[in-house]
């Protein structure tokens, strides 16, 4: 009685059908896998290892792709370095002093030494009154500041 009721239930019938299909699919899967394994066992190792057409194409294309990528990366880097090298040359030329410039700087330093020595010489006689005047001004300033100090004390 119970069995009859279950059989009449459309949902149970659907499930049973689904389970039957699954069992059939699993049986087919097992059969297909055994067939494949038999084929694989029968085929020699080298034949089995032979790459497929897609794989062979990939093997051929891989070095070409690698070369293209390397070129794409290396060319900008090379050109950048090349330009950089060329750009650096004028700067080097500017910073590197030429012999004429060196001579000029030597002459300048000699001139400066000469001027310095002349300036540090004693005041010429003609300008002596001016020197005395400046000394007097300096001493008066000093005395004024001393007075300030005394008054503060």
């Amino acid at each position, binding site marked *: 009685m119970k069995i009859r009721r279950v059989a009449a239930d459309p949902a149970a019938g659907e499930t049973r059908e689904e389970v039957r299909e699954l069992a059939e*699919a699993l049986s087919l899967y097992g059969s297909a*896998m055994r067939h494949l394994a038999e084929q694989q066992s029968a085929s020699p190792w080298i034949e089995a290892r032979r790459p497929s057409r897609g794989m062979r194409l990939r093997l051929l294309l891989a070095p070409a792709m690698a070369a293209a990528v390397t070129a794409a990366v290396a060319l900008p880097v090379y050109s950048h370095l090349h330009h950089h090298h060329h750009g650096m040359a004028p700067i080097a030329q500017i910073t590197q002093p030429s012999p004429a410039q060196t001579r000029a700087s030597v002459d300048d330093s000699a001139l400066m030494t000469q001027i310095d020595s002349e300036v540090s010489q004693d005041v010429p006689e003609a300008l002596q009154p001016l020197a005395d005047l400046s000394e007097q001004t300096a001493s008066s300033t000093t005395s004024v500041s001393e007075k300030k100090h005394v008054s503060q004390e």
Partner: protein
Amino acid sequence: MEEIATTAATGVAGGPGAGNELAIEKREQAMLELADFDEVVRVYRPRILRFLLSALSDRDAAETLTQECFLKAWSARHQFRGDSSLSTWLTRIAVNLMRDHLRSRSLRFWQKTRGSALDVMDISDWAPDGRGTPESVALARSRVAEVWKAVEKLSAQQRAVFVLRFVEEMELDEIAGTIGMNLSTVKSHLYRALAIVRERMGGAQ
């Protein structure tokens, strides 16, 4: 049957040392079998290859791991105690190799495409029971392809249990002994694997 014949011949059945005698006998037999390793490879290679091919759906990987399985067996032949049959021992090595392979493949995430992966075209000369209408053969192939895709989704343990059950047609307790799991764990893995396959097939329809 062979064991019964052996015990009958030795006349020690039922005695206190019967278990030990039997174990020694089995071990000696296994050792004898292992001694001719070429024969071991000839007899068991198709089975190991079938298991690995079904579990990995990759020809190259299956061939490589089959070779590795026998290499490992040869290296460890002195450790084989004869507790299980030679077939069970070799299958256990294959299951471990498959598990390691799947683990390392999941880490190599940039190698998603495999040149030697199985395809529906590989079963173009296969027909269920060797006959049928073109429509029924095509339907059978599409069903097999769906199960393949579903197997790809299974974990290593589920896959091993599933393939041993439906391709190798092993009993559940035999699977438990081979993989080294208890029976309830095997049942649990098989149940989950079937649920995934069923879901996949239901979704495909």
